[in-house]
Protein backbone atom coordinates (compact mmCIF):
# COMPACT_ATOMS: atom_id res chain seq x y z
CA UNK A 1 0.00 0.00 0.00
CA UNK A 2 2.99 2.29 -0.28
CA UNK A 3 2.64 4.89 -3.00
CA UNK A 4 6.29 5.84 -2.74
CA UNK A 5 8.09 2.49 -3.16
CA UNK A 6 11.52 4.09 -3.53
CA UNK A 7 11.16 5.17 0.08
CA UNK A 8 10.97 1.61 1.37
CA UNK A 9 14.11 1.59 3.40
CA UNK A 10 13.89 5.18 4.64
CA UNK A 11 11.28 5.71 7.32
CA UNK A 12 9.61 9.11 7.22
CA UNK A 13 11.12 11.38 9.84
CA UNK A 14 9.35 14.23 11.59
CA UNK A 15 10.81 16.63 14.12
CA UNK A 16 8.37 17.43 16.92
CA UNK A 17 8.51 19.77 19.86
CA UNK A 18 6.85 22.41 21.99
CA UNK A 19 7.82 26.06 21.84
CA UNK A 20 10.55 27.60 23.96
CA UNK A 21 8.69 28.93 27.00
CA UNK A 22 6.00 26.28 26.91
CA UNK A 23 5.91 23.21 29.10
CA UNK A 24 2.52 21.79 28.06
CA UNK A 25 3.42 18.16 27.46
CA UNK A 26 0.22 16.19 27.05
CA UNK A 27 -0.62 16.99 23.44
CA UNK A 28 3.05 16.55 22.60
CA UNK A 29 3.11 13.05 24.13
CA UNK A 30 -0.09 12.10 22.33
CA UNK A 31 0.97 13.45 18.94
CA UNK A 32 4.25 11.59 19.20
CA UNK A 33 2.48 8.34 20.11
CA UNK A 34 0.02 8.58 17.32
CA UNK A 35 2.52 9.56 14.60
CA UNK A 36 4.69 6.68 15.72
CA UNK A 37 1.62 4.50 15.65
CA UNK A 38 1.27 5.47 11.99
CA UNK A 39 4.88 4.47 11.37
CA UNK A 40 6.61 7.83 11.45
CA UNK A 41 10.02 8.20 12.95
CA UNK A 42 9.38 10.96 15.43
CA UNK A 43 12.27 12.97 16.78
CA UNK A 44 10.51 14.43 19.78
CA UNK A 45 12.37 17.35 21.31
CA UNK A 46 9.63 17.68 23.91
CA UNK A 47 8.64 20.80 25.78
CA UNK A 48 10.50 24.10 26.14
CA UNK A 49 12.32 23.85 22.83
CA UNK A 50 13.89 27.04 21.45
CA UNK A 51 14.17 27.62 17.69
CA UNK A 52 17.87 26.98 17.97
CA UNK A 53 17.23 23.45 19.19
CA UNK A 54 14.86 22.78 16.29
CA UNK A 55 17.56 24.00 13.90
CA UNK A 56 20.12 21.67 15.47
CA UNK A 57 17.75 18.74 15.07
CA UNK A 58 17.30 19.64 11.38
CA UNK A 59 21.02 19.45 10.94
CA UNK A 60 21.07 16.08 12.67
CA UNK A 61 18.10 14.70 10.70
CA UNK A 62 18.45 16.19 7.21
CA UNK A 63 15.72 13.86 5.85
CA UNK A 64 13.09 15.23 8.20
CA UNK A 65 9.92 16.00 6.28
CA UNK A 66 8.67 18.66 8.63
CA UNK A 67 9.25 20.47 11.88
CA UNK A 68 6.04 20.26 13.91
CA UNK A 69 5.75 22.71 16.77
CA UNK A 70 3.07 22.90 19.40
CA UNK A 71 2.40 25.96 21.48
CA UNK A 72 -0.35 26.30 24.05
CA UNK A 73 0.64 28.93 26.52
CA UNK A 74 0.04 31.89 24.19
CA UNK A 75 3.71 32.80 23.80
CA UNK A 76 4.17 31.38 20.35
CA UNK A 77 5.19 34.66 18.75
CA UNK A 78 8.03 35.47 21.11
CA UNK A 79 8.97 31.79 21.30
CA UNK A 80 9.34 31.52 17.52
CA UNK A 81 11.31 34.72 17.20
CA UNK A 82 14.33 33.82 15.08
CA UNK A 83 12.46 31.21 13.03
CA UNK A 84 12.54 33.46 9.96
CA UNK A 85 16.31 33.92 10.35
CA UNK A 86 16.84 30.15 10.82
CA UNK A 87 14.95 29.58 7.59
CA UNK A 88 16.65 32.35 5.65
CA UNK A 89 20.05 31.09 6.69
CA UNK A 90 19.07 27.59 5.52
CA UNK A 91 19.34 26.03 8.95
CA UNK A 92 15.69 24.99 8.76
CA UNK A 93 14.75 23.95 5.25
CA UNK A 94 11.76 21.66 5.67
CA UNK A 95 8.25 23.04 6.16
CA UNK A 96 7.32 24.27 9.64
CA UNK A 97 3.91 23.26 10.94
CA UNK A 98 2.45 24.89 14.03
CA UNK A 99 -0.61 24.06 16.11
CA UNK A 100 -2.12 24.59 19.53
CA UNK A 101 -3.40 27.71 21.22
CA UNK A 102 -1.82 30.52 19.30
CA UNK A 103 -2.47 33.67 21.24
CA UNK A 104 -3.05 34.87 24.77
CA UNK A 105 -6.68 35.21 25.79
CA UNK A 106 -10.05 33.66 25.18
CA UNK A 107 -11.14 35.82 22.29
CA UNK A 108 -9.22 34.75 19.22
CA UNK A 109 -8.83 36.56 15.93
CA UNK A 110 -6.89 35.78 12.78
CA UNK A 111 -4.19 38.41 13.30
CA UNK A 112 -2.14 36.09 15.48
CA UNK A 113 -2.03 33.60 12.63
CA UNK A 114 -0.96 36.27 10.17
CA UNK A 115 1.85 37.19 12.50
CA UNK A 116 2.92 33.55 12.58
CA UNK A 117 3.01 33.20 8.82
CA UNK A 118 5.09 36.36 8.75
CA UNK A 119 7.53 34.73 11.17
CA UNK A 120 8.20 31.87 8.77
CA UNK A 121 5.56 29.31 9.76
CA UNK A 122 4.34 27.43 6.68
CA UNK A 123 1.24 25.67 7.95
CA UNK A 124 -1.04 26.17 10.89
CA UNK A 125 -3.34 23.37 11.96
CA UNK A 126 -5.94 23.38 14.67
CA UNK A 127 -6.40 19.65 15.07
CA UNK A 128 -3.54 17.15 15.31
CA UNK A 129 -5.77 14.69 13.47
CA UNK A 130 -5.09 16.78 10.37
CA UNK A 131 -1.35 16.20 10.69
CA UNK A 132 -1.01 12.88 8.80
CA UNK A 133 -2.87 14.24 5.78
CA UNK A 134 -0.79 17.40 5.75
CA UNK A 135 2.45 15.43 6.10
CA UNK A 136 1.34 13.31 3.15
CA UNK A 137 0.66 16.41 1.08
CA UNK A 138 4.01 17.91 2.01
CA UNK A 139 5.68 14.65 1.10
CA UNK A 140 3.92 14.48 -2.23
CA UNK A 141 4.90 18.08 -2.98
CA UNK A 142 8.51 17.33 -2.11
CA UNK A 143 8.51 14.22 -4.30
CA UNK A 144 7.01 16.25 -7.17
CA UNK A 145 9.64 18.94 -6.86
CA UNK A 146 12.32 16.27 -6.64
CA UNK A 147 10.98 14.79 -9.92
CA UNK A 148 10.90 18.23 -11.49
CA UNK A 149 14.46 18.89 -10.53
CA UNK A 150 15.40 15.50 -12.01
CA UNK A 151 16.53 14.02 -8.73
CA UNK A 152 14.12 11.10 -8.51
CA UNK A 153 14.55 7.73 -10.23
CA UNK A 154 11.11 6.42 -11.17
Amino acid at each position, binding site marked *: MRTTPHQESAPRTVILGVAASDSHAVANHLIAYSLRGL*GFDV*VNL*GTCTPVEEFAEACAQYPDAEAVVIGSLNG*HVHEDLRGLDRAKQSGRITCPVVVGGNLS*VGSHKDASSLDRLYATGVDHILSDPAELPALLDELRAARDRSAVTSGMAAS
Partner: protein
Amino acid sequence: MSLTSLPPLGAGARTPRRPAEGDGNPATLPTPAESAAYITSLGKLTAAEVLDRCRAQGRVAIQPRCGVGGHEEMKALLATLEAEAAPDILTLTIDSHTRLLRFEEALRTLNLRPADLNGYPLVAHGWRRGREINELLAAPLEIRHGSPDARILFDVSVASGITSFEGGGISYNLPYSKAVPLADSLGAWQDVDRRCGELADHGVVIDRELFGTLTAVLVPPSISLAISVLEAVLAARAGVRCISVAYPQGGHLAQDVAALRSIPVLAERYLPAGVTVHAVLHEFMGVFPRERAHAEDLILYGALVARLGGASKLITKTHQEAYGIPDTAANVEGLRLADRANSPLLDFIKVDQNQVAEEMEWILAEVADLVEPLLERADLPEAIGQAFAQGRLDIPFSASRYARSDLIPRRDAAGAIRYLSTGALPFSATHLRRNEELLNAVDGPEPGFDTLMQGLTGDINHFRHVFQEEEPAAKPRPLIRPHSHPRTQRTEERT
Protein backbone atom coordinates in the same frame (compact mmCIF):
# COMPACT_ATOMS: atom_id res chain seq x y z
CA MET B 1 4.78 -1.39 28.02
CA SER B 2 5.85 2.20 27.84
CA LEU B 3 4.35 5.25 26.25
CA THR B 4 7.32 7.33 27.27
CA SER B 5 8.49 9.88 24.79
CA LEU B 6 11.50 11.47 26.35
CA PRO B 7 13.26 14.19 24.48
CA PRO B 8 16.87 13.38 23.63
CA LEU B 9 19.32 14.57 26.27
CA GLY B 10 21.41 17.52 25.35
CA ALA B 11 19.99 20.97 25.89
CA GLY B 12 21.07 21.80 29.39
CA ALA B 13 19.25 23.70 32.08
CA ARG B 14 19.35 27.42 31.89
CA THR B 15 21.45 28.94 34.62
CA PRO B 16 19.77 31.76 36.47
CA ARG B 17 20.85 35.09 35.10
CA ARG B 18 19.84 38.19 36.94
CA PRO B 19 17.33 40.18 34.96
CA ALA B 20 18.63 43.11 32.98
CA GLU B 21 16.10 45.58 34.28
CA GLY B 22 13.49 45.90 37.00
CA ASP B 23 14.27 45.77 40.70
CA GLY B 24 15.12 42.09 40.77
CA ASN B 25 18.72 43.04 41.21
CA PRO B 26 19.73 41.89 44.68
CA ALA B 27 21.63 45.07 45.28
CA THR B 28 18.45 47.10 45.15
CA LEU B 29 16.26 44.65 47.09
CA PRO B 30 15.28 45.29 50.71
CA THR B 31 16.69 42.81 53.21
CA PRO B 32 14.42 40.07 54.59
CA ALA B 33 14.19 42.02 57.85
CA GLU B 34 13.13 45.12 55.95
CA SER B 35 10.58 43.17 53.95
CA ALA B 36 9.21 41.59 57.12
CA ALA B 37 8.90 45.02 58.71
CA TYR B 38 7.14 46.29 55.60
CA ILE B 39 4.70 43.39 55.66
CA THR B 40 3.91 44.00 59.31
CA SER B 41 3.47 47.71 58.65
CA LEU B 42 0.99 46.95 55.84
CA GLY B 43 -1.52 45.96 58.47
CA LYS B 44 -3.29 43.44 56.27
CA LEU B 45 -3.87 39.81 57.08
CA THR B 46 -1.29 37.44 55.67
CA ALA B 47 -2.43 34.58 53.46
CA ALA B 48 -1.69 32.21 56.35
CA GLU B 49 -3.95 34.22 58.63
CA VAL B 50 -6.74 34.28 56.07
CA LEU B 51 -6.48 30.51 55.69
CA ASP B 52 -6.63 30.02 59.44
CA ARG B 53 -9.64 32.27 59.72
CA CYS B 54 -11.49 30.57 56.88
CA ARG B 55 -10.79 27.17 58.32
CA ALA B 56 -12.08 28.31 61.69
CA GLN B 57 -15.26 29.62 60.03
CA GLY B 58 -15.79 26.47 58.01
CA ARG B 59 -15.52 28.51 54.85
CA VAL B 60 -13.48 27.44 51.84
CA ALA B 61 -11.34 30.45 50.90
CA ILE B 62 -11.61 31.22 47.22
CA GLN B 63 -8.82 32.45 45.01
CA PRO B 64 -8.58 33.14 41.28
CA ARG B 65 -5.81 32.54 38.84
CA CYS B 66 -5.01 35.89 37.25
CA GLY B 67 -2.15 37.57 35.54
CA VAL B 68 -1.72 39.95 32.64
CA GLY B 69 1.43 41.57 31.32
CA GLY B 70 0.90 45.29 31.80
CA HIS B 71 1.14 46.87 35.22
CA GLU B 72 -1.90 49.10 34.93
CA GLU B 73 -3.87 46.21 33.43
CA MET B 74 -2.84 44.00 36.33
CA LYS B 75 -3.94 46.60 38.84
CA ALA B 76 -7.27 47.00 37.11
CA LEU B 77 -7.77 43.24 36.93
CA LEU B 78 -7.10 42.70 40.61
CA ALA B 79 -9.08 45.71 41.74
CA THR B 80 -12.07 44.54 39.71
CA LEU B 81 -11.85 40.99 40.98
CA GLU B 82 -11.75 42.27 44.54
CA ALA B 83 -14.57 44.74 44.04
CA GLU B 84 -16.86 42.33 42.26
CA ALA B 85 -16.10 38.93 43.70
CA ALA B 86 -14.18 39.61 46.93
CA PRO B 87 -11.96 36.53 46.82
CA ASP B 88 -10.28 35.71 50.11
CA ILE B 89 -6.83 35.64 48.55
CA LEU B 90 -5.69 37.20 45.29
CA THR B 91 -3.09 36.00 42.84
CA LEU B 92 -0.28 37.25 40.71
CA THR B 93 0.09 34.60 38.03
CA ILE B 94 3.53 34.99 36.53
CA ASP B 95 4.21 34.75 32.79
CA SER B 96 6.04 31.71 31.56
CA HIS B 97 9.14 33.54 30.37
CA THR B 98 9.78 34.75 33.88
CA ARG B 99 9.05 31.27 35.22
CA LEU B 100 11.85 29.87 33.09
CA LEU B 101 14.28 32.69 33.88
CA ARG B 102 13.81 34.07 30.40
CA PHE B 103 13.84 37.55 31.90
CA GLU B 104 14.98 39.18 28.67
CA GLU B 105 12.12 37.69 26.69
CA ALA B 106 9.68 38.73 29.38
CA LEU B 107 11.01 42.26 29.32
CA ARG B 108 11.02 42.47 25.53
CA THR B 109 7.44 41.28 25.26
CA LEU B 110 6.43 43.60 28.07
CA ASN B 111 7.90 46.53 26.18
CA LEU B 112 6.61 45.54 22.75
CA ARG B 113 3.24 43.88 23.37
CA PRO B 114 2.37 43.43 27.02
CA ALA B 115 -0.91 41.73 26.09
CA ASP B 116 1.15 38.91 24.57
CA LEU B 117 2.29 37.84 28.02
CA ASN B 118 0.45 35.00 29.70
CA GLY B 119 1.09 36.42 33.14
CA TYR B 120 2.52 39.32 35.09
CA PRO B 121 6.32 39.52 34.74
CA LEU B 122 6.93 40.56 38.33
CA VAL B 123 10.69 40.46 38.09
CA ALA B 124 10.64 42.76 35.08
CA HIS B 125 8.22 45.12 36.79
CA GLY B 126 10.13 45.03 40.04
CA TRP B 127 9.22 45.01 43.71
CA ARG B 128 8.18 48.64 43.94
CA ARG B 129 5.34 47.94 41.54
CA GLY B 130 4.66 44.76 43.49
CA ARG B 131 4.15 46.87 46.60
CA GLU B 132 1.93 49.26 44.71
CA ILE B 133 -0.31 46.36 43.74
CA ASN B 134 -0.26 44.91 47.22
CA GLU B 135 -1.27 48.20 48.77
CA LEU B 136 -4.17 48.56 46.38
CA LEU B 137 -5.91 45.48 47.69
CA ALA B 138 -7.46 44.29 50.92
CA ALA B 139 -6.81 40.60 50.29
CA PRO B 140 -3.33 39.11 50.62
CA LEU B 141 -1.65 37.92 47.43
CA GLU B 142 -0.05 34.70 46.32
CA ILE B 143 2.52 34.26 43.58
CA ARG B 144 1.50 31.40 41.31
CA HIS B 145 4.07 30.45 38.70
CA GLY B 146 5.96 27.32 37.73
CA SER B 147 9.65 28.03 38.19
CA PRO B 148 12.11 25.24 38.73
CA ASP B 149 14.37 27.91 40.18
CA ALA B 150 12.33 30.62 41.81
CA ARG B 151 14.89 32.31 43.99
CA ILE B 152 14.91 35.67 42.26
CA LEU B 153 11.14 35.69 41.90
CA PHE B 154 10.78 34.83 45.58
CA ASP B 155 12.99 37.67 46.68
CA VAL B 156 11.06 40.16 44.56
CA SER B 157 7.79 38.76 45.88
CA VAL B 158 8.75 39.08 49.50
CA ALA B 159 10.06 42.56 48.86
CA SER B 160 6.63 43.30 47.40
CA GLY B 161 5.11 42.20 50.69
CA ILE B 162 3.46 39.13 49.23
CA THR B 163 2.80 36.45 51.83
CA SER B 164 2.09 33.31 49.85
CA PHE B 165 4.28 31.57 47.30
CA GLU B 166 3.49 28.47 45.30
CA GLY B 167 5.84 25.76 44.14
CA GLY B 168 8.30 23.08 45.09
CA GLY B 169 11.46 21.40 43.91
CA ILE B 170 9.59 18.53 42.26
CA SER B 171 6.20 20.00 41.45
CA TYR B 172 7.57 23.15 39.82
CA ASN B 173 10.20 21.25 37.92
CA LEU B 174 8.72 18.17 36.25
CA PRO B 175 5.57 19.80 34.84
CA TYR B 176 7.26 23.07 34.01
CA SER B 177 10.59 22.46 32.32
CA LYS B 178 12.40 19.97 30.18
CA ALA B 179 15.97 19.84 31.31
CA VAL B 180 16.46 21.01 34.87
CA PRO B 181 17.95 18.21 37.00
CA LEU B 182 15.94 17.54 40.14
CA ALA B 183 19.01 18.15 42.26
CA ASP B 184 19.10 21.71 40.93
CA SER B 185 15.44 22.48 41.44
CA LEU B 186 15.34 20.84 44.84
CA GLY B 187 18.36 22.88 45.82
CA ALA B 188 16.86 26.12 44.58
CA TRP B 189 13.62 25.45 46.46
CA GLN B 190 15.49 24.55 49.63
CA ASP B 191 16.87 28.09 49.40
CA VAL B 192 13.38 29.50 49.06
CA ASP B 193 12.14 27.46 51.98
CA ARG B 194 15.06 28.53 54.15
CA ARG B 195 14.26 32.15 53.39
CA CYS B 196 10.71 31.46 54.58
CA GLY B 197 12.19 30.18 57.83
CA GLU B 198 14.23 33.34 58.10
CA LEU B 199 11.14 35.50 57.55
CA ALA B 200 9.27 33.49 60.17
CA ASP B 201 12.05 34.43 62.58
CA HIS B 202 11.26 38.02 61.67
CA GLY B 203 7.63 37.38 62.53
CA VAL B 204 6.18 36.87 59.07
CA VAL B 205 4.84 33.46 58.14
CA ILE B 206 4.83 32.85 54.42
CA ASP B 207 2.24 30.36 53.19
CA ARG B 208 4.00 27.90 50.90
CA GLU B 209 1.61 26.12 48.55
CA LEU B 210 2.89 22.89 47.02
CA PHE B 211 1.78 22.25 43.47
CA GLY B 212 0.32 18.77 43.83
CA THR B 213 -1.44 19.37 40.55
CA LEU B 214 1.73 18.39 38.70
CA THR B 215 0.94 17.72 35.05
CA ALA B 216 -2.75 18.16 35.86
CA VAL B 217 -4.02 15.54 33.44
CA LEU B 218 -5.04 12.21 35.00
CA VAL B 219 -2.71 12.55 37.97
CA PRO B 220 -3.41 9.69 40.39
CA PRO B 221 -4.13 11.04 43.89
CA SER B 222 -1.42 9.01 45.58
CA ILE B 223 1.21 10.41 43.20
CA SER B 224 0.10 13.95 43.85
CA LEU B 225 0.01 13.48 47.61
CA ALA B 226 3.24 11.51 47.81
CA ILE B 227 5.13 14.26 46.03
CA SER B 228 3.53 16.89 48.24
CA VAL B 229 4.51 14.93 51.33
CA LEU B 230 8.12 14.85 50.18
CA GLU B 231 8.13 18.56 49.39
CA ALA B 232 6.38 19.32 52.66
CA VAL B 233 8.93 17.40 54.66
CA LEU B 234 11.73 19.28 52.92
CA ALA B 235 9.95 22.60 53.45
CA ALA B 236 9.30 21.93 57.13
CA ARG B 237 12.91 20.92 57.65
CA ALA B 238 14.00 24.18 56.04
CA GLY B 239 11.85 26.21 58.40
CA VAL B 240 8.53 26.72 56.60
CA ARG B 241 5.67 27.10 59.11
CA CYS B 242 2.58 27.17 56.91
CA ILE B 243 2.14 24.63 54.13
CA SER B 244 -0.77 24.41 51.72
CA VAL B 245 -1.01 21.04 50.05
CA ALA B 246 -2.76 21.48 46.75
CA TYR B 247 -4.58 18.60 45.15
CA PRO B 248 -6.06 18.71 41.64
CA GLN B 249 -9.68 17.69 41.27
CA GLY B 250 -9.63 14.50 39.25
CA GLY B 251 -13.35 14.29 38.65
CA HIS B 252 -14.48 11.39 40.84
CA LEU B 253 -16.28 12.64 43.92
CA ALA B 254 -15.35 10.04 46.50
CA GLN B 255 -11.76 9.82 45.29
CA ASP B 256 -11.30 13.58 45.36
CA VAL B 257 -12.92 13.98 48.75
CA ALA B 258 -10.81 11.12 50.07
CA ALA B 259 -7.66 12.73 48.72
CA LEU B 260 -8.46 16.04 50.37
CA ARG B 261 -9.34 14.39 53.65
CA SER B 262 -6.08 12.45 53.50
CA ILE B 263 -4.09 15.65 53.71
CA PRO B 264 -4.50 16.27 57.45
CA VAL B 265 -3.84 12.57 58.08
CA LEU B 266 -0.61 12.71 56.08
CA ALA B 267 0.41 15.91 57.84
CA GLU B 268 -0.13 14.25 61.18
CA ARG B 269 1.82 11.23 60.03
CA TYR B 270 4.81 12.75 58.28
CA LEU B 271 5.23 16.35 59.40
CA PRO B 272 6.50 17.92 62.60
CA ALA B 273 3.84 19.29 64.95
CA GLY B 274 4.70 22.98 64.65
CA VAL B 275 3.73 23.25 61.00
CA THR B 276 0.25 24.35 59.96
CA VAL B 277 -1.04 22.39 56.99
CA HIS B 278 -3.97 23.37 54.79
CA ALA B 279 -5.68 21.29 52.16
CA VAL B 280 -6.23 23.16 48.89
CA LEU B 281 -8.26 22.05 45.92
CA HIS B 282 -7.42 23.10 42.40
CA GLU B 283 -10.64 23.04 40.43
CA PHE B 284 -10.41 20.54 37.60
CA MET B 285 -7.07 21.14 35.91
CA GLY B 286 -7.48 18.97 32.83
CA VAL B 287 -9.34 19.47 29.59
CA PHE B 288 -12.31 21.66 30.33
CA PRO B 289 -15.63 21.39 28.56
CA ARG B 290 -16.07 24.09 25.96
CA GLU B 291 -19.66 25.12 26.42
CA ARG B 292 -20.18 27.72 29.05
CA ALA B 293 -22.96 25.87 30.86
CA HIS B 294 -20.86 22.73 31.05
CA ALA B 295 -17.80 24.57 32.25
CA GLU B 296 -19.92 26.20 34.92
CA ASP B 297 -21.33 22.87 36.03
CA LEU B 298 -17.78 21.66 36.48
CA ILE B 299 -16.77 24.79 38.39
CA LEU B 300 -19.62 24.38 40.84
CA TYR B 301 -18.92 20.68 41.18
CA GLY B 302 -15.29 21.40 42.00
CA ALA B 303 -16.28 23.91 44.61
CA LEU B 304 -18.62 21.37 46.23
CA VAL B 305 -15.78 18.86 46.28
CA ALA B 306 -13.64 21.39 48.13
CA ARG B 307 -16.38 21.93 50.68
CA LEU B 308 -16.99 18.23 51.18
CA GLY B 309 -13.28 17.47 51.35
CA GLY B 310 -12.76 20.09 54.04
CA ALA B 311 -10.34 22.15 51.97
CA SER B 312 -9.17 25.45 53.41
CA LYS B 313 -8.92 26.98 49.95
CA LEU B 314 -10.11 26.56 46.40
CA ILE B 315 -8.35 27.81 43.29
CA THR B 316 -11.02 28.58 40.75
CA LYS B 317 -11.39 28.20 37.01
CA THR B 318 -13.56 30.07 34.56
CA HIS B 319 -15.99 29.20 31.81
CA GLN B 320 -13.34 30.33 29.32
CA GLU B 321 -10.81 27.75 30.51
CA ALA B 322 -10.94 25.72 27.31
CA TYR B 323 -10.21 28.80 25.20
CA GLY B 324 -7.51 30.84 26.80
CA ILE B 325 -6.63 33.17 29.61
CA PRO B 326 -10.00 34.43 30.80
CA ASP B 327 -11.18 38.00 30.67
CA THR B 328 -11.96 39.79 33.90
CA ALA B 329 -15.70 39.21 33.69
CA ALA B 330 -15.31 35.46 33.29
CA ASN B 331 -12.92 35.40 36.22
CA VAL B 332 -15.39 37.27 38.41
CA GLU B 333 -18.15 34.90 37.36
CA GLY B 334 -16.03 31.85 38.13
CA LEU B 335 -15.25 33.13 41.61
CA ARG B 336 -18.85 33.98 42.35
CA LEU B 337 -20.08 30.64 41.17
CA ALA B 338 -17.50 28.75 43.19
CA ASP B 339 -18.39 30.77 46.26
CA ARG B 340 -21.94 29.41 46.08
CA ALA B 341 -20.56 26.15 47.45
CA ASN B 342 -19.89 28.05 50.68
CA SER B 343 -23.63 28.59 51.04
CA PRO B 344 -25.02 27.93 54.51
CA LEU B 345 -28.01 26.39 52.74
CA LEU B 346 -26.03 23.42 51.48
CA ASP B 347 -25.29 21.68 54.75
CA PHE B 348 -27.55 18.87 53.61
CA ILE B 349 -25.19 17.85 50.83
CA LYS B 350 -23.32 14.75 51.89
CA VAL B 351 -20.93 12.32 50.30
CA ASP B 352 -20.99 8.53 50.67
CA GLN B 353 -18.85 8.02 53.76
CA ASN B 354 -18.07 4.36 53.11
CA GLN B 355 -16.86 4.99 49.61
CA VAL B 356 -14.69 7.86 50.84
CA ALA B 357 -13.27 5.74 53.66
CA GLU B 358 -12.37 2.99 51.21
CA GLU B 359 -10.66 5.38 48.79
CA MET B 360 -8.81 7.00 51.66
CA GLU B 361 -7.46 3.71 52.85
CA TRP B 362 -5.99 2.95 49.43
CA ILE B 363 -4.63 6.43 48.95
CA LEU B 364 -2.89 6.47 52.32
CA ALA B 365 -1.43 3.02 51.77
CA GLU B 366 -0.14 3.93 48.29
CA VAL B 367 1.39 7.15 49.58
CA ALA B 368 3.09 5.15 52.32
CA ASP B 369 4.50 2.74 49.73
CA LEU B 370 5.88 5.66 47.76
CA VAL B 371 7.29 7.93 50.44
CA GLU B 372 8.30 5.80 53.39
CA PRO B 373 11.36 4.18 51.80
CA LEU B 374 12.57 7.66 50.83
CA LEU B 375 11.90 9.37 54.13
CA GLU B 376 14.23 6.87 55.78
CA ARG B 377 17.12 8.09 53.65
CA ALA B 378 19.57 10.56 55.10
CA ASP B 379 19.77 12.69 51.95
CA LEU B 380 16.17 13.15 50.94
CA PRO B 381 16.80 15.31 47.84
CA GLU B 382 19.25 12.75 46.53
CA ALA B 383 16.79 9.93 47.29
CA ILE B 384 14.09 11.76 45.38
CA GLY B 385 16.27 12.30 42.32
CA GLN B 386 17.23 8.62 42.27
CA ALA B 387 13.66 7.48 42.75
CA PHE B 388 12.55 9.47 39.69
CA ALA B 389 15.50 8.21 37.66
CA GLN B 390 14.56 4.62 38.53
CA GLY B 391 10.81 5.09 38.21
CA ARG B 392 10.12 4.49 41.89
CA LEU B 393 8.57 7.91 41.71
CA ASP B 394 6.93 8.98 38.49
CA ILE B 395 4.37 11.30 36.97
CA PRO B 396 2.28 10.90 33.85
CA PHE B 397 2.95 13.10 30.81
CA SER B 398 6.10 14.62 32.20
CA ALA B 399 7.36 17.79 30.60
CA SER B 400 10.77 16.93 31.92
CA ARG B 401 13.24 14.25 30.96
CA TYR B 402 13.88 13.75 34.66
CA ALA B 403 10.72 11.74 35.14
CA ARG B 404 10.13 8.59 33.14
CA SER B 405 6.37 8.77 32.62
CA ASP B 406 6.21 5.02 32.59
CA LEU B 407 3.19 5.51 34.76
CA ILE B 408 0.06 5.29 32.60
CA PRO B 409 -3.14 6.44 34.22
CA ARG B 410 -6.65 5.47 33.19
CA ARG B 411 -10.11 6.08 34.53
CA ASP B 412 -12.05 3.14 35.89
CA ALA B 413 -15.68 2.55 35.00
CA ALA B 414 -16.80 5.04 37.67
CA GLY B 415 -14.39 7.71 36.45
CA ALA B 416 -11.82 7.42 39.25
CA ILE B 417 -8.18 7.70 38.24
CA ARG B 418 -6.28 4.41 38.49
CA TYR B 419 -2.94 3.04 37.29
CA LEU B 420 -2.98 1.11 34.04
CA SER B 421 0.77 0.81 34.26
CA THR B 422 2.74 1.58 37.41
CA GLY B 423 6.17 1.27 35.81
CA ALA B 424 8.59 0.75 38.67
CA LEU B 425 6.43 2.28 41.42
CA PRO B 426 6.96 0.23 44.57
CA PHE B 427 3.33 -0.68 45.11
CA SER B 428 2.28 -3.76 47.04
CA ALA B 429 0.84 -6.65 45.10
CA THR B 430 -2.59 -5.99 46.60
CA HIS B 431 -2.62 -2.48 45.20
CA LEU B 432 -1.48 -3.61 41.82
CA ARG B 433 -4.21 -6.24 41.75
CA ARG B 434 -6.91 -3.78 42.74
CA ASN B 435 -5.89 -1.38 39.98
CA GLU B 436 -5.82 -4.17 37.46
CA GLU B 437 -9.24 -5.42 38.44
CA LEU B 438 -10.75 -1.99 38.30
CA LEU B 439 -9.30 -1.31 34.86
CA ASN B 440 -9.95 -4.74 33.38
CA ALA B 441 -13.58 -3.81 33.70
CA VAL B 442 -12.93 -0.98 31.25
CA ASP B 443 -10.75 -2.30 28.43
CA GLY B 444 -10.28 -5.96 29.13
CA PRO B 445 -6.97 -7.49 30.26
CA GLU B 446 -4.59 -6.65 27.38
CA PRO B 447 -5.66 -3.56 25.47
CA GLY B 448 -3.87 -2.98 22.16
CA PHE B 449 -2.19 0.31 21.23
CA ASP B 450 -5.24 1.76 19.48
CA THR B 451 -7.58 0.84 22.32
CA LEU B 452 -5.14 2.33 24.77
CA MET B 453 -4.70 5.55 22.82
CA GLN B 454 -8.42 5.90 22.37
CA GLY B 455 -9.13 5.10 25.98
CA LEU B 456 -6.50 7.51 27.22
CA THR B 457 -7.75 10.28 24.97
CA GLY B 458 -11.26 9.57 26.16
CA ASP B 459 -10.14 9.75 29.78
CA ILE B 460 -8.33 13.02 29.16
CA ASN B 461 -11.51 14.39 27.59
CA HIS B 462 -13.65 12.87 30.35
CA PHE B 463 -15.75 15.93 31.09
CA ARG B 464 -16.32 16.75 27.46
CA HIS B 465 -17.80 13.26 27.21
CA VAL B 466 -19.86 13.64 30.38
CA PHE B 467 -21.45 16.66 28.78
CA GLN B 468 -21.73 14.96 25.40
CA GLU B 469 -19.84 17.74 23.71
CA GLU B 470 -19.16 17.11 20.08
CA GLU B 471 -15.86 15.40 19.44
CA PRO B 472 -13.24 17.28 17.48
CA ALA B 473 -13.56 16.21 13.83
CA ALA B 474 -12.89 12.51 13.34
CA LYS B 475 -9.38 11.59 12.29
CA PRO B 476 -9.24 11.86 8.50
CA ARG B 477 -7.65 8.94 6.68
CA PRO B 478 -4.11 9.82 5.66
CA LEU B 479 -3.63 10.40 1.92
CA ILE B 480 -0.31 8.59 1.77
CA ARG B 481 0.41 5.84 4.29
CA PRO B 482 3.79 6.33 5.84
CA HIS B 483 6.16 3.39 6.13
CA SER B 484 3.77 0.60 6.98
CA HIS B 485 5.91 -1.66 9.16
CA PRO B 486 7.43 0.52 11.81
CA ARG B 487 10.92 -0.18 12.99
CA THR B 488 11.39 -2.65 15.79
CA GLN B 489 12.09 -0.10 18.49
CA ARG B 490 8.76 1.55 17.82
CA THR B 491 6.94 -1.78 17.69
CA GLU B 492 7.64 -2.23 21.35
CA GLU B 493 5.61 0.84 22.05
CA ARG B 494 2.63 -0.50 20.16
CA THR B 495 1.98 -3.56 22.27
